[in-house]
């Protein structure tokens, strides 16, 4: 069940992604609406992170194309923000919370230019929004997991974007932080920002999101929560059995087969 959004802001067309020749996403077609709080949901290894990485151009596409705001990513980067998984960086890096949040301004600054006073104020305001202003000058390794996640979120806020992609922002955070973060995301979407969140907890998904993408290597469903959060669709997403898809994927990797035939090679 895949519903096309009327006011779509994200368009994913026939995207296939492979790691080491093994397809992890097969022919994904997606249209996601503006201003929604969107959850990307699926089991471990379903390709959730890969989907947003492919939208952000961080992994090469084996096929297909992505458009944001009806344009290629290159043209709209300043309107798009990306929050990687917390574990993807080394938090022992010599930087303060404010230093990290300031990185959110680098895209707007471009090369060579140093952060100006205005950038520092935006960064401080972003820290305030996530309740971390008191930790601005704290070394990042001294922050708890939840606080580090908030710093990442503040960095995204400092980008002042229209469209946000967040990879597992609730991983390893305490309940209070999770609540605070979801309230903030809700507020952002109320203001017309579009927020796409990778999430794997089915319990909370229903109350968090207004649009859901169900994913397990291929797209199972995409649509408003009331239409997609159905037992049979969830069963398809989380159903324990190994699908033929995964089996064929392994085979492609073993035989070093291309996932798509290329005519002009």
């Amino acid at each position, binding site marked *: 069940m895949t519903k096309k959004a009327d006011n779509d802001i994200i368009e994913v067309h026939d995207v296939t992604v492979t790691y080491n020749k093994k397809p992890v996403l097969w022919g994904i077609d997606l249209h996601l609406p503006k201003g929604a709080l969107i959850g990307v949901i699926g089991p471990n290894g379903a390709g959730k992170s890969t989907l947003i*990485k492919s939208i*952000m*151009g*961080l992994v090469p596409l084996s096929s297909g194309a992505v458009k944001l705001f009806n344009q290629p990513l*290159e043209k709209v*980067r*300043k309107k*798009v*923000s*990306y929050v*990687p998984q917390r574990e*993807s*960086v*080394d938090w022992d*890096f*010599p*930087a*303060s919370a404010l*230093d*990290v949040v300031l*990185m959110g301004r*680098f*895209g707007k*600054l471009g*090369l*060579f230019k*140093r*952060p100006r006073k205005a950038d520092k104020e935006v960064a401080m305001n972003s820290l305030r929004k996530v309740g971390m202003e008191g930790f601005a000058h704290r*070394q990042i*390794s001294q922050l708890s997991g939840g606080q580090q996640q908030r710093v990442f979120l503040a*960095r995204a806020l400092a*980008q002042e974007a229209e469209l946000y992609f967040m990879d597992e922002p609730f991983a390893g955070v305490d309940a209070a932080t999770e609540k605070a973060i979801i309230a903030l995301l809700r507020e952002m979407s109320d203001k017309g920002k579009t927020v796409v969140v990778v999430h794997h907890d089915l319990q909370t998904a229903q109350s968090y999101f207004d649009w859901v993408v169900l994913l397990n290597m291929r797209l199972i469903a995409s649509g408003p929560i009331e239409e997609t959060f159905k037992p049979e669709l969830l069963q398809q997403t989380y159903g324990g059995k190994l699908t033929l898809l995964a089996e064929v994927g392994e085979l492609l990797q073993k035989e070093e087969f291309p996932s798509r035939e290329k005519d002009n090679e």
Partner: protein
Amino acid sequence: MDSLIEFFSFSDPNIRYVVAGSVLLAASAAIVGSFTFLKKKALSGDAVAHSVLPGVCLAFILSGTKNPFYLVLGAFATGWLSLVFIDNIVARSKIKEDTATGLILSVFFGVGILLLTAIQHSGNAAQSGLDQFLFGKAASLVGSDLIVFSSISVILIASVILFFKEFTLIAFDENFAKAIGFPVRGLELLLTTLTVLAVVIGIQAVGVVLMAAMLITPAAAARFWTDKLRVMVILAAFIGAFSGICGAYISYIAPAMPTGPWIVMVLSILAIGSFFLAPRKGIMSRYLLQRKNQNQILEENLLKLFYKMGEKDQDYLKERSLKSIQEKRPYSFRKIKRGLQRLLQQGFLERKKDKWQLTLAGKSKGQRVVKLHRLWELYLTEKMNIAPDHVHDDAETIEHIITPEIERKLEKKLGYPKTDPHQSDIPY
């Protein structure tokens, strides 16, 4: 003493060259190396260092001179090539980066030694001194070398200043840098080029074998002292520069002593010193903290013991002998005496001939520890559903670390209870 004055007056142009050269080389290597260190690419610095040797030899064979310009060019070419090979091996095979690095390092260095040996036996008189690239000889720096090397040093330092923000970002979070549209590949390429250049000019002073230390050690040492990146890079530069001067000075007063290895020796001593002495992160300060904790535990346990014995006898200020204490708590006499002595100095105990007695301050401190112990036991059984016979050992540790704020929260959460799970009174 004369030699010290003579050296640091820099009146001899040779000394000037050697010192200026060593300082510039060491400082610029340290600055560029800070980012190599942060990107966890220490090994590739070593690979580049070893891989420049065949380039130096080839440049000499082709040009027939030791003109530093040609040698730098040759060194740069093979140094760069080695990194390209490593990247390609990792990308196109199942070999992991550490293996590929080791492989390329030894192959390139092997070829370098081969060429060097061939040159040495070729009978070309101009070749003498080429072997200095193995272990370096800063003392042989002359004016013309210095111009080439110092201009490269200046380029290195200026590039890092110019791209500081960008290098920081790709070292911390490469994916984010890509996501905001920074030319990450180009920046990586630039940083690699700078690393190769730093190696190329550094080998004149310390040689290919020790060059990796010049890149990584200053940053590693500086990291112990600060959590601020800017401070770390500047500190690394100073550590590098200081080692450069020391190395030059040592080889000046003892001409038999090689400069390069001494620069690395001084660097290593500074790094080891940082490892032991740095505040918070150093071994020393962690050891002192441990000892402070151990003392606190011992003192509080003794006060607790006095209080509990007083509780039993209904007389908190009764005088206790050393023996009666040891019966309850099987510490060694020496340890007990040490604890008692400290408590005496702190005013929590008084000494009555060979016996000991709580002061009022000591009584209330002992009482607090007992209270915290029992409160924590109650908290674990009531709120955490842990069996009453499993909570004592936990409470033995926790009683020493609970702050007054947590104490108040505990009291409130449990509703100021009267007894603990073992029906002992909780004293307030």
